[in-house]
């Protein structure tokens, strides 16, 4: 239950309120040495800012980095500053130390997706937990059919990972569509909620795996749209969010119906939680 110590190696400001931290284990972190920095796409860490508090944040880096590209390996986290802890996190600089527990939780269905079309739908900060999956899909591109990324944000200023998005967009083996709720400035792209993109892209609904991450309401409508297109519930995966204190199933805060989001999730196959997902205040 004791966090390991990590040092901030790099800080990148993504948007006015969102930033990405690259964290390296501090030498001497006993547990870290044994465990190494490895994780599966979709998992999260508990990040502790000294004297402020601890919050769950998904890992947004590459789970299968090209060999020794960065050594030692790093945890990458993209966080939106919304409250006390995340705002304090936003003030960290290179060289600062923070506590890390993890990785925890379930991961995106990388195996199930093999040989299929992949539709990834992200809303806002929801792109961060999906990015590791995308990295992995792309690094084994031959294993998958079509790969589609649909991404919606509030405004053009909120778009994360701009440079990467451009690179991805330029690829022929990946379809990227970005939309904003409200266009501002010189935005020439799509306007509207992310679900409006679904009818516009082509995939084989019967052989598709969908990965969704974003606000609950956005996920609800995305599922409806995908189902309209004929994607089966068992092929839809969503990443859930609840209050978390321990991340290992003891504190009880993250219960969602019969599940604990920390250990049974955060990634769920939709049909397994469908019964609860549609209900209010679960």
């Amino acid at each position, binding site marked *: 239950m004791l966090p390991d110590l990590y040092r901030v190696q790099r800080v990148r400001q993504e948007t006015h309120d969102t930033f990405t931290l690259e964290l390296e284990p501090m030498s001497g972190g006993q547990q870290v040495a044994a465990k190494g920095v490895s994780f599966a796409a979709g998992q999260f860490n508990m990040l502790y800012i000294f004297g*402020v508090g601890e919050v769950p944040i998904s890992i947004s880096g590459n789970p299968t980095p090209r060999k020794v590209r960065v050594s030692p390996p790093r945890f990458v986290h993209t966080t939106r500053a919304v409250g006390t802890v995340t705002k304090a996190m936003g003030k960290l600089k290179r060289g600062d130390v923070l506590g890390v527990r993890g990785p925890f939780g379930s991961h995106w269905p990388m195996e199930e997706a093999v040989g299929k079309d992949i539709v990834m739908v992200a809303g806002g900060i929801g792109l961060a937990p999906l990015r590791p999956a995308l990295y992995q899909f792309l690094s084994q591109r031959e294993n998958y059919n079509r790969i589609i990324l649909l991404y919606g944000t509030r405004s053009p200023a909120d778009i994360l990972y701009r440079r990467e998005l451009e690179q991805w967009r330029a690829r022929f083996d990946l379809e990227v569509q970005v939309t904003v709720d409200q266009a501002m400035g010189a935005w020439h792209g799509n306007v509207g909620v992310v679900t409006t993109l679904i009818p516009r892209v082509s995939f084989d609904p019967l052989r598709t795996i969908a990965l969704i991450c974003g606000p609950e309401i956005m996920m609800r409508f995305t599922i409806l749209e995908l189902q309209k297109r004929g994607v089966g519930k068992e092929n839809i995966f969503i990443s859930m969010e609840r209050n978390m204190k321990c991340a290992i199933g003891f504190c*009880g805060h993250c219960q969602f119906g019969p599940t604990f989001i920390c250990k049974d999730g955060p990634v769920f196959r939709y049909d397994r939680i469908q019964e609860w997902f549609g209900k209010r205040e679960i």
Partner: protein
Amino acid sequence: MQIIDRNSLDILFDTLKRRGFNLVGPTIRDGAIVYDRLTSTADLPIGWTDEQNGGTYRLKKRADVAVFGYTVGPHSWKKLLYPSVQRLWRAKRDGENFQFITEDEEVSKFAFIGVRSCELHAIAIQDKVFINGKYIDPVYKLRRENVFIVTVNCGKASGTCFCVSMNTGPRATFGFDLALTEILEDNHHRFTVEVGTERGAEILREVPHREADEEEKAKVEDIVAKTARQMGRTLDTTDIKDLLYRNYEHPRWDEVASRCLTCGNCTLVCPTCFCTTVEDVTDLTGEHAERWRKWDSCFTMDFSYIHGGSIRSSSKARYRQWMTHKLATWIDQFGTSGCVGCGRCITWCPVAIDITEEVRAIRGKE
């Protein structure tokens, strides 16, 4: 099955103490029978009993000198197995860095005296939560390993007991080192003893005892059978999980919400409820930080708070979460009901909300 007489109970206590156990068990404080440190059998609630019903608990004098002539009270053993408030770690700033200060915790060995069958089940359920899963809670594990359990088969049931419905009592069948049944007869106050573990047998060897005769063995059956007939409450568990899963939108939830105070008492008295929260604190200098873990309740707004608001902001949703967890989702999570039928939540709910009644209402008007 063995027999010890009333005086030998003192010898049992002394033996446990000699073996380094701190005795914890029933004693009277502030108008109730609570679990606290015991120094001798004189601390036990001799000649006292309790009367319980929804929202009420009263101590009453008994006509006899029964030692265990009461049922479960406001405390449960969880307070000893994972303390209500516990520091998890300390950290100290160290220039630009900080460091965790680890300290090995010394925990005293406890002997729990007078654990009831429903409580054994509750401990078994918490074992599932804390030590039988993928992660292990070190605080619980450390304390649990050291506990010696002296069980008592219930000689009476209270107005809020329903262990029979939950299949958790009144007779203890596992999980104890020694199990006693109190036989109160004029001039002959004695206990039958069943040995549950080798450890238990070892302790019993130091206490004067004899083999129970057939009549005495039969008495045990009579006593527990009589207790079983006295259950103050019943709960029909048929198909309970699906019943509740089917009824997330039952009007009864609104009805109970109109009475529920969202005070959280039910969760805190429940011997299986395990939820906690953490508080990250610092001192004035900002040099020292600590993390504390405290019992929490799914009835608080913070419990389900995520940025923007609480998920379960209505009391309806909070009561529903609690009851559905106890009786239904728990089964999916841990393969067992989360309720052992001890009745504490009924007695200690300040406005007498009754889990058995709520189930009945939902079943009735489905």
